[in-house]
Structures are given as structure tokens and as C-alpha cells.
């Protein structure tokens, strides 16, 4: 599974993207966030306040209960501020 980070989420995690292989019980966006937050102090800092994080699965905005699998591209980022 490919995971991307943007803006301050990227800065806190310390990398822009990574390939991860979470265990099968990690089945949705919220589960993936919880699992990722245990991978390093940077990940923990980035995901400390889940309410400030938004996600996309395969380049569409995704809710916490959206399923994720090995073939997906999942991105985490702060609320968007374009325009």
C-alpha cells in the first residue's frame, strides 16, 4: 500500500511517501491512521490529533470508515487551503 503525506503532516512524519504493509486487521482509513501512528515518533506526532487530518483513497476524499487494501494509494493531509 502506498501512503502519501502532504503539508504539515508530511513535515511531521518526515517523509513525503512510503510503501507500507499493515496487517490484515487494518481495514479502513481510521485503522490505517491508528496503525501508522505507531510506526515512529514522527508518525505519532503527525496523527496525534486525528480530527485535524483528512484522507484520500485513490485520489478521492475519503471518510474514516472507507475500506483500504494493499493496492490502494492513501493520502493524509490537513484540511485544504487552496483558492
Amino acid at each position, binding site marked *: 500500500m502506498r501512503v502519501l503525506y502532504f503539508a504539515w503532516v508530511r513535515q511531521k512524519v518526515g517523509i513525503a511517501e512510503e510503501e507500507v504493509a499493515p496487517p490484515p486487521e487494518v481495514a479502513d482509513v481510521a485503522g490505517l491512521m491508528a496503525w501508522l501512528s505507531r510506526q515512529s515518533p514522527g508518525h505519532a506526532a503527525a496523527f496525534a490529533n486525528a480530527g485535524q487530518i483528512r484522507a484520500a483513497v485513490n485520489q478521492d*476524499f475519503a471518510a474514516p470508515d472507507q475500506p483500504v487494501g494493499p493496492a490502494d494509494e492513501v493520502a493524509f493531509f490537513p484540511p485544504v487551503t*487552496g*483558492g
Partner: protein
Amino acid sequence: MGQVTVRVQEAPFDLAAESAALAAGRTDIGGLASFVGLCRADDGLAALVLEHYPGMTERAIARIAAEACARWPLSGCTVIHRVGRLAPGAPIVLVLTASTHRAAALESCAFLIDWLKTGAPFWKREEFAGGRDRWVEAKSADDAAAARWSAPPPDGGT
């Protein structure tokens, strides 16, 4: 559906050229509405740095543009959003809409910029003199502006 142009680029855009391109060869357009968002020098800003999610950005904007074309009878619309480092006073985003009737052009232009603020994956970081910087926080006013277009967003964007 109208002619839709979406671009994400570092380079500046040319409002006159984009307007001309949208109206070229047509005599059925009654109104062209545009919005240009500019970088303000609030609080001594030295530069604004825009990051985005390549691939998803174009998808998200194209979906918002298609939604505008579905809601209003547009001849076409153009959305150009810049990324990278921008100086105060620099243009950031262009929304341009064309329709037979002015209300459709004006309303869809407002719709597009409201949704771009909340439904496309861009993030702004402000750099100040002396090296201090901060990420711009999303504004609840922007969510409210997008939400006034009553129907749900083109995507599940927050």
C-alpha cells in the same frame, strides 16, 4: 457540456488570453465572469508557498468544473491554479466562466471559487521575513461559503 480547461502550474496565467480562448470563434456567449485570487501581504508576508497533490488536484478540479457545467448552462469554464512560491501581489488562481446569460456566468464563477477553497487538495504555507513560517489554517467561513451551494459537493470533500 461546455469546454472545460483545468491547469495546475507554477507559471503566471494570462487572463486576457484565457478569456479570448474561451470565447474564440463563438457568438453565443453573452457573459464572461472571472475571479482572480491574489496573494495578500498580510502581517508582513514575504512569500506564499503552495503545495498540492499531483493527480488528485486535477481530478478534483475537473469534477468541480463538471458539476458547474451540470448546474448552469455554460459555454465553458477555465480553472488555473498556481503552485510553488508566490510573492505578495501575485495572482494565485483564475476562474473563468462563459455562458449565454450573465447570471449563469456569475453564479458558476462564485461556485467554482468557493469549491476550490474547500474541495481541491492545495495547502498554503506563509513565509515571513526572518525565516518564520506557518501553514494557513482552513477557515470555517470557507466551509460555509461552499455549503451555501446547498446541494452536496461534487465529491465527499469536506
